[in-house]
C-alpha cells in the first residue's frame, strides 16, 4: 500500500516547493503536464460571508482520480471551500471548474457531485434502497438498472441486503456507509466528504478510513476530503492542502508536508514539531551553524548560503530526536521534565535551558529516563528544516 501511494503521488512533485510555488504550480502549470484537465480547479477563489472573508485567494488543481485532503484547524474555511464546489455557497471572486467546465452559473443539482456529510444526512423517511436510488432516479436511469446499481453499491460498502431498512435502524457507521453508497452510485465527477468520520467512535473511524480509501481506489473517483485530524489526512491522502485562516499554507504529498513543512504553522499543526529559535553564526553553501536562543549551537544542512546574523528557526520532529548517548552530530544537554510511556515508544519533554523545552518521541531501548534525570538529545544535520524570520521554509 505505501508503495502504491508514493507511486501515485510521485508525479506532482517536480520540486519540493514552498507554499506559494505549490499553489502557483498546481493552479496554472499543472494541467497538460498531468495529461488532461484537472477534475476540479480553483482559480483565485474568494469567499465572503457578508463582510467576513472566509477564504482568500485559494488556488488548487486536483488531478483526476486522486484523493486530496483539506486539512486545517476549526474555522479555517475547509467546509466553505467544499461547499463552494457543490454550489452551496457563492464565491465572490475567481472561478471554479469541474472537469474543465466552469460552474459559476451551474446550480447545485446539475453539478454532478457526490456529497457525504458529517451527520450522514440520510433521508429519514426513505428506506436504504430509496436513499441510494435517489440520485439515479433524478438521472432517469431505467428501473432495472437502478436495482442493479443500488445492489452493487450496497455490496461495495459491505451492507448487501439492507435495502428495506430505515436509517434509524442502522448504526452510525452503517449510516455513513449508506451515505457513501448514495454519493457514489451515480458515478459523480467528484466525491466531497466533509469530516465524514468525526461522528464515529475511534474503532469505527479507523475501519471506515481504510474502507473509504479502498472504495475510492476501486472506483477511481476523484475525492476531496475535509478533516482537522492529521492522522486521517496523512494516512488517506495523495495530496494534502494545509490551510490556515482562509488561506493555503502548503500543498504536497503527506511526506512532503510532514517532512518538509513550508511554514511554521504547518510544522506546528502537523505533529507538533519542535521550533528552536536562533541566529546564524556561520554558514557555507551546504551548512549553517546556528546559535540557539536556548544557548547551544547546532550545525544543520542548509539549501543555500545564509547570511551570518540572520534570524532562523530550526524545526525538528520529535521522532527525529535521539535520546541518550547516541552518536548524532548535534547534541543538546538537558533535563527530563516529564516522561510518557507509550509501550513501544516514549515521549520525553526535555528542558534544554533558556526556558526551552523540546519534545522527543523515541523507540524504547534499554532503560527509560525518569523525571529530573540529566539527558542528551540529539539530531543529525539533515533531520531538520530551517525557517526564515517570517516563518517560511528556506529553500
Amino acid at each position, binding site marked *: 500500500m505505501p508503495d502504491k501511494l508514493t507511486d501515485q503521488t510521485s508525479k506532482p512533485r517536480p520540486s519540493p516547493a514552498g507554499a506559494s510555488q505549490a499553489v502557483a504550480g498546481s493552479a496554472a502549470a499543472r494541467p497538460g503536464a498531468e495529461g488532461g484537465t484537472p477534475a476540479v480547479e480553483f482559480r483565485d477563489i474568494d469567499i465572503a460571508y457578508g463582510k467576513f472573508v472566509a477564504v482568500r485567494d485559494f488556488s488548487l488543481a486536483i488531478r483526476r482520480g486522486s484523493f486530496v485532503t483539506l486539512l486545517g484547524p476549526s474555522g479555517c474555511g475547509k467546509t466553505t471551500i467544499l461547499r463552494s464546489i457543490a454550489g452551496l455557497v457563492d464565491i465572490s471572486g475567481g472561478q471554479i471548474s469541474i472537469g474543465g467546465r466552469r460552474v459559476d452559473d451551474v446550480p447545485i443539482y446539475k453539478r454532478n457531485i457526490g456529497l457525504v*456529510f458529517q*451527520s450522514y444526512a440520510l433521508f429519514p423517511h426513505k428506506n436504504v434502497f430509496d436513499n441510494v436510488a435517489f440520485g439515479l432516479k433524478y438521472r432517469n436511469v431505467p428501473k432495472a438498472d437502478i436495482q442493479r446499481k443500488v445492489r452493487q453499491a450496497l455490496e461495495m460498502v459491505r451492507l448487501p441486503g439492507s435495502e428495506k431498512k430505515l436509517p434509524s435502524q442502522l448504526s452510525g457507521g452503517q449510516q455513513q456507509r449508506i451515505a457513501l453508497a448514495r454519493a457514489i452510485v451515480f458515478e459523480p465527477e467528484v466525491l466531497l466528504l466533509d469530516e465524514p468520520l468525526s461522528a464515529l467512535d475511534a474503532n469505527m473511524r479507523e475501519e471506515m478510513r481504510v474502507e473509504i480509501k479502498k472504495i475510492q481506489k476501486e472506483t477511481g473517483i476523484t475525492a476531496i476530503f475535509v478533516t482537522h485530524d492529521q492522522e486521517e489526512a496523512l494516512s488517506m491522502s495523495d495530496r494534502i492542502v494545509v490551510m490556515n485562516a482562509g488561506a493555503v499554507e502548503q500543498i504536497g504529498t503527506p511526506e512532503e508536508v510532514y517532512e518538509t513543512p513550508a511554514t511554521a504553522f504547518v510544522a506546528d499543526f502537523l505533529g507538533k514539531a519542535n521550533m528552536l529559535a536562533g541566529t546564524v553564526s556561520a554558514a557555507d553553501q551546504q551548512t549553517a551553524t546556528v546559535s540557539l536562543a536556548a544557548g547551544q549551537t547546532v550545525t544543520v544542512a542548509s539549501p543555500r548560503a545564509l547570511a551570518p546574523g540572520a534570524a532562523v528557526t530550526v524545526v525538528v520532529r520529535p521522532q527525529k530526536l535521539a535520546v541518550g548517548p547516541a552518536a548524532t552530530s548535534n547534541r543538546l544537554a538537558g533535563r527530563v521534565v516529564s516522561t510518557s510511556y507509550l509501550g513501544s515508544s516514549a515521549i520525553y519533554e526535555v528542558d534544554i535551558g533558556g526556558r526551552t523545552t523540546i519534545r522527543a518521541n523515541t523507540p524504547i531501548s534499554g532503560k527509560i529516563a525518569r523525571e529530573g534525570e540529566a539527558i542528551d538529545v540529539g539530531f543529525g544535520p539533515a533531520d531538520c528544516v530551517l525557517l526564515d524570520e517570517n516563518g517560511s521554509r528556506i529553500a
Partner: protein
Amino acid sequence: MSAAARGNREGRWAWRLTGFVTLCVYIFLFAPIIATVVLSFNASMFGGFPMTGFSLQWYGKLLGNEQVLAAFRTSMWIALVTAVITTAVGVVTAYTLIRFEFRGKQMLNTLVILPALVPETILGVGLLVAIKAVDQPRTSLLLVLGHILLAVPYVVLIAQARMVGIRRVYEEAALSLGASRLASFREITLPLLVPAVVAGALLAFTISFDNTSASLFWRPAGVETMPTQILSMLKISISPEINALGTVMILVTVGIPLIGGLLLQGLTRLRRRGNPEEKT
C-alpha cells in the same frame, strides 16, 4: 410519631386538596358540555333539566330545519376551503421564513402573526371598514378570506416549529443528488413536514368552523354559519333543538382532529409494517 410521618400526612392532605381543586376545575369545564349533550336527548319540550325521557326528536327536527342545514353546509365548505388554503399558504410561508434570508423578513414574520394578537372584534370591524373603503360588498369570499387571516398565524407557527427541526442537510443532500429545489421540497421537506401539515389543517378547520365574533361582522346578508345560526336561534328561545345543534358542533370540532390524529398514526404504522425487518 416522627416528623417524617407527620410531614407525610401533611403531604397527603396537600395532595388531596390539589386533587379536589383539579376535579372542581374539570367539572366546571366539562359540565356545560356534558349538560348540552345529555339534554339534546331529552324528551321534554324545555331545554333544561329535569330529563323526562330519551328521545332523538330534536335531531330529527334539526334534519328538517332548512336554515340549520344551510348553516351547516356553509360552515363546512368555508372551513374546508379555509383549511386547504391556509395550510398551503402557512407551510410555504414557514418554509420561506426558516430557509431564506431576505429584506423585510422580520416584518413579514410580524405581519403573519399579527392577526393572532389583535382582538377578533377589532379585526372584524377593521376588515369591514377596509371593504367599505374600497366599496366592495360583503361576500362569502370575504368571509373565507377573513377566516384564512385568522387561521394563518397558527398554521405558520406550527409549521415553523416543525421546520426548525428539519435539518438543512437533507435538502442539500437532495440537491446534490440532482433534485431541483422544487423536487427536493416535494420529496424531502414536505414529507417530513406532514405532521405539521395535518395538525395545521385540522386547527385551521376548527378555527374557521368555530368562529363566532368575526363571522358576525363578515358574513354576507342572509348567510349564517353554525355559530351565528345558534346565536340567532338563541335570540328567539332556548329550544332543546339548540342542544342538539351544539352536540353536532362538539362532534365536528372534537371528532375531526381526533380522526386526523388517528389517520396519521395509522399511516405511520402502515409504513413501519411495509418494513418487515424492523427490530423492536
